[in-house]
């Protein structure tokens, strides 16, 4: 080893790096005569010890400085040596204290480091990296999975992902819309909108405040529109990127013929993230249930007689009819309530006001609360396998949530035509009715979000906590509530969908969503820790965690339609908002295009026409078809290769047995065959009589 060269390089490094642990091993090579050199002055440990020993002779000896010097390049063992012998050195008490303090302060990092404390809290400066990545809530999720397992922990990880998405959106919106408005906006005080939130209705929270003219430098309408588009695009890209990254990691060899159900259960079913004693016991119980169920399933195959079949079919038809009825009914109900402002007449004044304000919110939230449990009970009529039951309920609940949200938003749009029914209408001094339908829509969505949160609190506290107290105090066998991962995930996705729908009308919804997700995380964590047990069914929603993201992506895509409809179809309010002068919001873009040089404007206009648009569409369809054909031909190639592998193995076995039989018959039982099939390094084994006959039989089939 080239000592001098390395040594100077190491010296450079030690000067850069505060934390001296990188010096581990430098200098002392196991012997006590450690050589610690600084660049200009050489002071070895031995030298220091020698000096300390005769320090009583040297009155003005600055032991601290010397120790400091030695400390620069030495390692823990030297510090240990120093510390241990400190009592026996002939130094004054003050000197000893000073040295001890110095050693503990400077050397403390090294010593404490060796004792191995908690890893998560440490953020060390590293010579290579500038940032250390600190994941949010990492130890909280670990604590949850210690007891509940990774299925429940995946819900919390999903909430964390959503939080990141919302933070991104919030940064965009706050930075480009809210802050400029707050800084430079001239607030229109002549017209105040009587919205549901009183004072807040006129604030930056809602669309109505943003004005058109905002000083010459910043084009707020354009910023508003483009930022909103960008926020949606960012969400798309983020979700798709995460899905692709996770998809890459999993090897999907789409070979449906090789489903090793039992082998996977046996080898892969233990959840190693469960690390608490109670959690291990609970997990074992659910594993036991799972295995028993699997064995029972194997035994009872195709033993379904016609009577049960008939009841099953009738049950399925009935429950599907009911589900359809519920969907249609709730859609109709939402529409009616949105349309009809005077549903309950003859009520005393303050109550009437409340009812009018909150009727739509109450209906939407109430339906979301009541209908999914009905679905869960209905599916029992149908007599499916439990796993299919769960998937079916999941599908129905998703459809219900999406349908109710779509109808909610579209029925809100109905208010755009009729200004007089609008509650934000204010009769102005100049007798013009000015209304701001965007504010109305934004406020309704906001209210639903808040009520959603309220229901979460109510259910958590009134239902789960009380049930837990009941079980604890009266020891009844009701059992604690089980943490239902699927419905919790759908809940959170529903909230996110609401945010997306309302984002255009109220830019602050992204920030609200961030706060809401934080509250939801901690509240659910608290309730789960205090009042819940892990779910009994080992339902693994997806192996890669893509399942929840796929639902989220689908929701985003579907909620594009009402948003696009709202932007394209409706005329913006005349008196409020940044688009008040325009015919349609996207005219801001055409205006921007209009300001560009002529040739660019012509090119862009040309791009918008069908002459370009249709061939591009055809091209994309052709590409999709091409890739699909390619992938199916690869699939066939894979199956062909697998068949060849199996063939090769059988042929080899035949050859071996042919040679084996050609030799004496008795030698066959001792023959260590399959040498050619065994990978190097595995030990050889005897073939037992039984397997020999099996192979011979198999070979005869061939």
């Amino acid at each position: 080893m080239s000592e001098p060269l390395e040594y100077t390089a190491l010296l450079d490094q030690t000067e850069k790096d505060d934390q001296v642990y990188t010096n581990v091993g430098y200098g002392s090579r196991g012997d006590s005569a450690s050589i610690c050199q600084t660049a200009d002055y050489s002071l070895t440990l031995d030298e220091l010890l020698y000096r300390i020993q005769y320090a009583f002779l040297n009155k003005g000896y600055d032991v601290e400085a010397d120790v400091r010097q030695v400390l620069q390049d030495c390692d823990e063992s030297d510090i240990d040596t120093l510390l241990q012998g400190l009592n026996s050195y002939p130094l004054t008490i003050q000197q000893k204290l000073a040295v001890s303090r110095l050693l503990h302060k400077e050397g403390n990092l090294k010593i404490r480091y060796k004792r191995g404390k908690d890893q998560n809290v440490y953020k060390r400066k590293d010579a290579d990296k500038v940032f250390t990545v600190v994941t949010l809530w990492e130890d909280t999720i670990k604590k949850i999975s210690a007891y509940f397992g990774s299925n429940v922990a995946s819900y919390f990880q999903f909430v964390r992902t959503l939080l990141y998405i919302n933070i991104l959106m919030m940064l965009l919106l706050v930075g480009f819309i809210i802050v400029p408005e707050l800084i430079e906006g001239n607030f229109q005080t002549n017209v105040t909108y009587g919205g549901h939130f009183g004072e807040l209705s006129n604030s930056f929270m809602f669309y109505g405040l943003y004005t058109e003219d905002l000083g010459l430098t910043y084009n707020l309408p354009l910023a508003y529109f483009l930022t909103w588009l960008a926020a949606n695009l960012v969400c798309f890209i983020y979700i798709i990127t995460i899905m692709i990254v996770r998809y890459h990691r999993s090897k999907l060899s789409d070979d449906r013929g090789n489903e090793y159900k039992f082998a996977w259960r046996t080898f892969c079913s233990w959840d190693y993230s469960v690390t608490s004693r109670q959690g291990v016991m609970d997990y074992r119980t659910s594993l036991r249930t799972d295995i028993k169920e699997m064995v029972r399933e194997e035994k009872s195959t195709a033993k379904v007689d016609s009577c049960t079949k008939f009841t099953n079919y009738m049950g399925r038809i009935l429950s599907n009819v009911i589900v359809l009825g519920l969907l249609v009914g709730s859609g109709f109900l939402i529409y009616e309530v949105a349309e009809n402002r005077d549903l309950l007449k003859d009520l005393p004044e303050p109550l009437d006001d409340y009812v009018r304000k909150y009727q739509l919110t109450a209906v939407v939230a109430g339906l979301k609360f009541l209908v999914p449990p009905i679905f869960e009970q209905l599916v029992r009529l149908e007599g499916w396998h439990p796993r299919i039951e769960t998937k079916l309920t999941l599908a129905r609940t998703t459809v219900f949530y999406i349908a109710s949200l779509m109808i909610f938003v579209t029925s809100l749009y109905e208010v755009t035509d009729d200004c007089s029914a609008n509650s934000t209408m204010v009769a102005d001094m100049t007798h013009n009715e000015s209304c701001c339908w965007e504010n109305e829509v934004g406020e309704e969505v906001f209210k639903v979000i808040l009520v959603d949160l309220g229901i979460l609190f109510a259910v958590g506290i009134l239902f789960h906590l009380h049930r837990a107290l009941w079980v604890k105090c009266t020891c009844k066998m009701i059992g604690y509530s089980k943490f239902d991962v699927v419905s919790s995930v759908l809940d959170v996705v529903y909230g996110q969908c609401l945010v997306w729908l309302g984002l255009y009308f109220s830019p602050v919804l992204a920030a609200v969503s961030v706060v809401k997700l934080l509250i939801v995380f901690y509240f659910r964590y608290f309730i789960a820790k205090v009042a819940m047990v892990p779910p009994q069914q080992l339902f693994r929603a997806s192996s890669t965690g893509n399942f929840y993201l796929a639902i989220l992506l689908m929701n985003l895509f579907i909620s594009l339609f009402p948003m696009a409809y709202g932007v394209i179809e409706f005329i913006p309010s005349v008196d409020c908002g940044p688009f008040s002068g325009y015919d349609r919001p996207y005219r801001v873009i055409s205006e921007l295009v209009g300001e560009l040089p002529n040739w660019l404007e012509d090119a862009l206009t040309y791009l918008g026409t069908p002459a370009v648009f249709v061939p591009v569409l055809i091209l994309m369809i052709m590409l999709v078809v091409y890739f699909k054909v390619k992938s199916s031909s690869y699939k066939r190639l894979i199956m062909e290769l697998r068949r060849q592998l199996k063939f090769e193995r059988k042929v080899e076995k035949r050859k071996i047995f042919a040679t084996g039989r050609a030799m004496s018959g008795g030698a066959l039982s001792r023959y260590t065959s399959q040498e050619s099939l065994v990978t190097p390094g595995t030990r050889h084994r005897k073939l037992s009589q039984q397997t020999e006959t099996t192979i011979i039989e198999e070979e005869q089939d061939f």
Partner: protein
Amino acid sequence: MGNRASMQLQQEEIHDIQNETGFSHNQIVRLYSRFTSLDKNNNGFLSREDFLRIPELAINPLGDRIVHSFFLESNDETVNFKQFMRVLARFRPTKTNVNKNKLNTREEKLKFAFQMYDLDGDDRISREELLAVLHMMVGDNISEEQLNSIADRTITEADEDGDFMISFLEFKKVMDRVDVEQKMSIRFLN
């Protein structure tokens, strides 16, 4: 807390371990501190009791098997730091565009898992070994007959050459669609 002069980590050792396992310098130092904190008697090596003192490992029903896999590397009753690192190296995340002479390939990870189930070390998982592992995982309260049928079905599914045991090749084939690279990876210090 005792004289640690005998146990310091030499620079060459760090380099060796770095080349062999692919851990970075900081990771090796951190893991060394963990190693020494597990080594209560300052022996310079770990015994089985030292491992089982980790509470999470002690609770895990398969904890014994996990500890056993550490000792396979050393063929002994003790594990020194290098062997410790070699075993941990199998849990490093796999990067696809890196040269394949490291210990964290998919094959090595699967070999680790296989050795956990192969109780007697003959490179085959027999029915009795499967039953033993199932017993460990599930515990009591499930009938012998059910466990037997599971073990039988598992072997039937996985076995291809008809010897009623699962060899490493067959095990690999069973795990073909399982995302081993992600599930058996720990991000050390990242």
